[in-house]
């Protein structure tokens, strides 16, 4: 006799507070959703509900600890408030993840949504969360680099016709972010065990990447570089990327445009060499 269906139901009940409470109140509709034979449903009902509740709370606590380990700086900033937010998370969202990593990411996204609805205190907590959440996302993509066509196409970057066919794309292992605060300085203080009292509020653009051994590295970049990398969306040909950016940066004379184009091409080449950007042919050209 298979135990699997019972175990599936038990796992779900342990992580879905509303369903668990309804199930033990004998809510027939909820019980039917589980699709368990009567005998199996009775096995669940035979479990001491108070002890099951204690265990379910332990699960929530363990998940919170795991998430805090993966978002340590955010956890440090929020302190005991993290527990209340974790409680809300478990009430609103039925955690159903294969790994602790996925759970931590889901919790980070929930936190981000909460911060969007009600700005956190301290205000720079949102920047810290964004930093840690992005680092987690990048770590999950650490094996996703793609250089298939890039080396060949790099040689053609400065050819006008090629620029209409080459499509640049940011590597999944890289991400650009704009912060309102100096996150690097805040992170350094937090790692020393200190909560910054008045960190500098200034726009900060960062290129984050996960390297081959799974470590997160970062570089400060200027706004034009950030804008270029963001524009490399994997769908827009290089010529259009440059054209669009020229308008944004108000390069309104032919000379300015020509200079700007050259700078973009040089930047693109440098980013390709550093593995930030990958190049491919647009789809019709790929099949030509």
């Amino acid at each position, binding site marked *: *006799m*298979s*135990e*699997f269906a019972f*175990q*599936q139901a*038990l*796992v*779900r009940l*342990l*992580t879905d507070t509303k369903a668990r409470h309804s199930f033990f109140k004998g809510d027939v509709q909820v019980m039917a959703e589980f699709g368990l034979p009567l005998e199996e449903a009775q*096995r669940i009902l*035979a*479990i*001491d509900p*108070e*002890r*099951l509740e*204690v*265990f379910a709370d*332990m*699960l929530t606590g*363990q*998940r919170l600890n*795991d998430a805090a380990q993966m978002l340590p700086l955010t956890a440090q900033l929020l302190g005991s408030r993290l527990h209340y937010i974790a409680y809300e998370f478990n009430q609103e969202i039925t955690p*159903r*993840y*294969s*790994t*602790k*990593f996925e*759970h931590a990411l889901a919790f980070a996204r929930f936190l981000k949504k909460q911060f969007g609805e009600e700005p956190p205190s301290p205000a720079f907590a949102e920047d810290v969360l964004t930093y840690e959440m992005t680092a987690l996302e990048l*770590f999950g993509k650490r094996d996703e680099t793609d250089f298939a066509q890039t080396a060949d196409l790099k040689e053609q970057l400065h050819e006008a016709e090629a620029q209409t066919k080459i499509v640049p794309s940011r590597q999944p292992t890289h991400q650009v972010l704009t912060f309102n605060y100096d996150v690097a300085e805040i992170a350094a203080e937090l790692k020393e065990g200190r909560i910054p009292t008045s960190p500098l509020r200034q726009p900060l653009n960062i290129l984050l990447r996960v390297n081959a*051994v*799974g*470590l997160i590295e970062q570089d400060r970049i200027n706004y034009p570089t950030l804008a270029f990398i963001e524009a490399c969306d994997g769908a827009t040909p290089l010529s259009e990327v440059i054209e669009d950016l020229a308008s944004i940066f108000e390069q309104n004379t032919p000379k300015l445009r020509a200079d700007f184009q050259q700078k973009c091409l040089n930047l693109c080449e440098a980013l390709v060499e550093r593995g930030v950007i990958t190049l491919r042919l647009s789809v019709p050209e790929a099949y030509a």
Partner: protein
Amino acid sequence: MLEEIPFLGAGLGFRRVLKDEILASRGKIDFLEIISDQYIDRPLIKEEEAVELAQKFPVVLHGVDLSIGTDCPIDDDYLKKIHHVARLTKPKWVSDHLCFTGVPGHSLGQLTPLPFTDNTVRIVVEHIKQISATFDCPFLVENISYYFLISPTTMSEAEFITRVVGESGCGLLLDLANVRNNAINNNYDPIKFLDQIPLDRVVQIHLAGSSFNRGLMIDTHSHPVDREVFEMLRYTAPKMPMLKGVIVERDQNYPPFEELLAELDQIRDILASDWKPYHASGIAGELSKQMVETAAHVGVSS
């Protein structure tokens, strides 16, 4: 395989926050238990830490997510990752828990009890045999603290453990704190329980401190090892001819490090007075030799 493993002594569960103190206390900690999950899906720098620990101490690997009680095939991908950590650290043995921790696609991350039935024995034994065959070191299973019972139960926990160990051939990692917690939570005599399980299959012991929460004794690893648990070690020691090591687990609420070391000394005192092989093995001299052998084994000159 077990016969070839020397007695390791008294050790600590490795916790990152204690790393500096642990490394500074090499002469006072006989071996380390590494949580294999801490080195899975982590940056390479964590793997380097695992290798460093294995170079400096005899190590054993302890996992939490094999979920040997789930009624479906073992997660091959996860097992491969454990193997990877084992290749890096060359542990004396590998262990996990007699429980389930989730179903495919939905991990609980918590040790969840199993019903004590013939069917569960069948599931668990099959998985243990499969897992054991993939390692070239022994695989042990650990008894858990359970806070609720799952029906039907057609046998006692003691009989369940006896059958699992007997039919799979694996060794037992006996957590005496969990025995004590279950006895309190389910109102039975822990000594009677210990008399009913195959102590001659115990390879490793876990000791830890627990705490009460909402009327239950919870396996929190947050307090010193209780006197009662030490007494259970004293009681079981003479009956464990295969014992290879005793680990103290502490996960939070850390005391001054000397207090953890004092618990290891207490273990040694108990074994010296109550465990015959302790003196026969010449353990003090043996430990120095083990550290040299361990270093050579992982390719480091001593």
